[in-house]
């Protein structure tokens, strides 16, 4: 028999990759790296600002309180990015929700319990529309959500050009509610954001929908040929993101106690950065929502470290975020180029 191959016969152990390779190829590695980074940064903070109260539990818990809205928005962005898309409308939807809520509560006198479901429905519907256009007309998510960005920011201004502060007593009592925890407390917003995180984790890892999100992000063409109903999944992903953005907007309104047409401008960049720093591949299909939590915490920690440093100005946050983003993108790039055959 003539040989049909030109390659050496595969070594018997080629099936089971070596241990080092296996660890490097493990998709949990980026999350661990981010978690490690967080711990190192926290340790640095402890050693430098020990005498300024950095070690207090509340400083740690404040990371959750001050970034609750970012976490929720980033969780929504995680769905979109895992599916291989991108959502630029996040910040605008958040801004819109703050305006919408403040306007309904303050100017129209609606009770907040009625306003909350309305705001969430509007956000989710906006996301649904964007997903619908992306799926059915095959327009790039980038450009569709860009239109969403314009639309919602415009709607903010249509409601009012001025900031509306929220003085409703129910809202302020909600905003001031503290849930004590060990040596400190969490705000309602922080608790909600952690619940959202938990739900997102469950959905992504324990439901068919969640797995379809990963499948589409891994290889859209294959997902189609495997008979998965990807159209619905794509639309659903953007709906989830719209919903999360609206919820983040509510938390933001609660946190700031006002609606402002310029609230959360550019927050989508922070959300995307948190997702990427959390180890999710921007090309989709790989990553964990837990990583997003660490991404958000790292960004939050940068902010509070800069505050504690005192001499550093706030723009270092942006620069540090950009540098981290760059580092993670380059690492991702080298990882994916090794993985692909």
């Amino acid at each position, binding site marked *: *028999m*003539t*040989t*049909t*191959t*030109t*390659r*050496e*016969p*595969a070594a018997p152990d*080629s*099936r*089971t*990759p070596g241990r080092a390779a*296996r660890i490097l*190829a493990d*998709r949990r590695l980026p999350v661990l790296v981010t978690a490690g980074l967080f711990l190192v940064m926290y340790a640095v903070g402890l050693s430098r600002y020990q005498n300024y109260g950095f070690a207090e539990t509340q400083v740690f818990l404040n990371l959750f309180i001050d970034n609750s809205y970012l976490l929720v928005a980033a969780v929504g962005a995680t769905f979109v990015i895992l599916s291989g898309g991108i959502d630029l409308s996040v910040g605008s939807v958040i801004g819109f929700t703050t305006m919408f809520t403040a306007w309904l509560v303050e100017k129209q006198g609606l009770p907040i319990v009625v306003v909350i479901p309305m705001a969430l429905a509007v956000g989710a519907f906006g996301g649904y529309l964007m997903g619908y256009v992306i799926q059915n007309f095959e327009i790039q998510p980038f450009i569709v959500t860009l239109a969403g960005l314009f639309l919602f920011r415009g709607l903010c201004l249509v409601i009012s050009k001025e900031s509306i502060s929220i003085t409703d007593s129910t809202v302020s009592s909600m905003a001031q509610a503290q849930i004590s925890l060990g040596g400190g407390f969490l705000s309602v917003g922080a608790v909600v954001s952690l619940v959202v995180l938990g739900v997102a984790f469950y959905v992504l*890892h*324990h*439901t*068919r929908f969640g*797995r*379809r999100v*990963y*499948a589409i*992000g*891994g*290889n859209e*063409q*294959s*997902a189609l*040929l*495997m*008979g*998965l109903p990807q159209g619905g999944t794509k639309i659903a992903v953007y709906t989830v993101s719209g919903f999360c953005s609206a919820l983040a907007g509510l938390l933001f309104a609660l946190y700031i106690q006002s609606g402002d047409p310029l609230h959360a401008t550019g927050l989508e960049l922070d959300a995307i950065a948190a997702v990427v720093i959390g180890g999710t591949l921007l090309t989709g*299909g*790989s990553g964990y929502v837990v990583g997003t939590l660490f991404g958000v915490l790292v960004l939050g920690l940068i902010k509070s470290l800069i505050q504690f440093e005192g001499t550093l100005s706030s723009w270092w946050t942006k620069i540090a975020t950009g540098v981290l983003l760059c580092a993670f993108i380059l690492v991702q790039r080298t990882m994916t180029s090794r*993985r692909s*055959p």
Partner: protein
Amino acid sequence: MAEPLPVLEMTGIVKEFPGVRALSGVDFRLFPGEIHALLGENGAGKSTLIKVLTGVYSLDGGTVTLNGTPVRFHSPSQAQQAGISTVYQEVNLCPNLSVAENILIGREPTRFGRIQWKRLRREAAELVDRLGLDIDVDAPLSSYPLAVQQLVAIVRSVGTGDSDGPGSGTRVLILDEPTSSLDRDEVLELFALMRRLKDQGVAILFVSHFLDQIYEVCDRMTVLRNGALVGEHLVRDLDQVGLVQLMIGKALDQLEELHDHQLHADVGESLLTADGVGRTGRIAPFDLEIKKGEVVGLAGLLGSGRTELARLLFGADQPDSGKVTIGGRQVPMSAPNDAIAAGVAFCSENRRAEGLVPDLTVRENIVLALQAARGWTRPVPAAQRDELVAKYIKALDIRPADPEARVGQLSGGNQQKVLLARWLITQPKLLILDEPTRGIDIGAKAEIQKLVVSLSEDGMAVLYIAAELEEVLRLSHTIGVLRDRKLVAKLANGPEITPTRILETIASGEHQ
């Protein structure tokens, strides 16, 4: 062998595309527990037949019966539900998910909407186990080589819709070129799996370009040519020479002959030598010499390595062994630029994806190679450019003769001529033509062949690839014969070299 009823029977299948009859009345049947090869050259209608069968295309005529019941599928998922699964050459799985998920995604066991991971892993492991494979279902798919991914794809497709055991749901398994990027051990493992499935009563339709593999694993074969059925034979009844003859056939009768063409004798000194050039998984290391004014033809079946060889000589793919010397200088071949600088030109067989820029005009497409060589700072002067373009539009009779026409709107033959013109104005020393006559009308075919003759008379070396043996034979001074990704023979053309002789070489892989 007493023949049971066929599990699948297709009769009188007709499929038409605007202007083309892709399948004209093809009959095809598939018996349970057999491996059936579907064979044919490019454009014979293999993939169209498979797509009609799996519901990707709707059929324009004929009937399909499955287990005696007429069926008509409108989508691949319908076909899948009826028990017809397909595994393509490119693994259509999600590399980022675990093996177990890939096997079961879309039908994961759930309880109250929650995926039962333990059960999922167990079921996947059982499936893998019962098919006699040894794969860790928890590992991500991407941690396995392509061959294993292919096996996983088969496990997934036979597992589809089965309730009583593996393969019970799948009655027909279509394997479309699964072996083209596997090495020998991997192929053996795939064959072992195919035989196990066959023993379980699954009918397997196997498409492969490797003749040895067909003779090794298949029971029966159906040969198509030009959209029509040429024959159905038991593998043991038809030898390789007979098969190759059936596949290539005599489709050239109506082609205008080059009247008593004598190959010109003024072949000059050596231009290009390849020493042990090869690339793992594409083509085995080969030696080849091309002289000035010489036409070297490559003969072989589709997938035998013709294109792969040409791409290595152009640097379109980088060789991982051997060296290429052009005009006495070794060329690194790290990118096409190296070969282009040395005077090599390459017209890809895949005009649309690798040749033309469909949005640009005829003129722009023609000057592209010349311009690329000059760099962006030195544009070809407009007067010279227009003159060159007009000259080649006239010389090659490109229609419409409008340099402003968008190249995407031209017919296949004219697109091919645009590509030729693009390279001819760079005055290459070696012109590589990969299937320049495929998919174009007979008039244009003859013109291109005449052009090749006159170019070689002017001292240009040509590497000519064509599916039709007569075409290669008529034009070439030397014929390289390829078989199963290996250059098996280099024959000097002469009276004793006949199509039959080449056929025998292709079929046997041996030469004296």
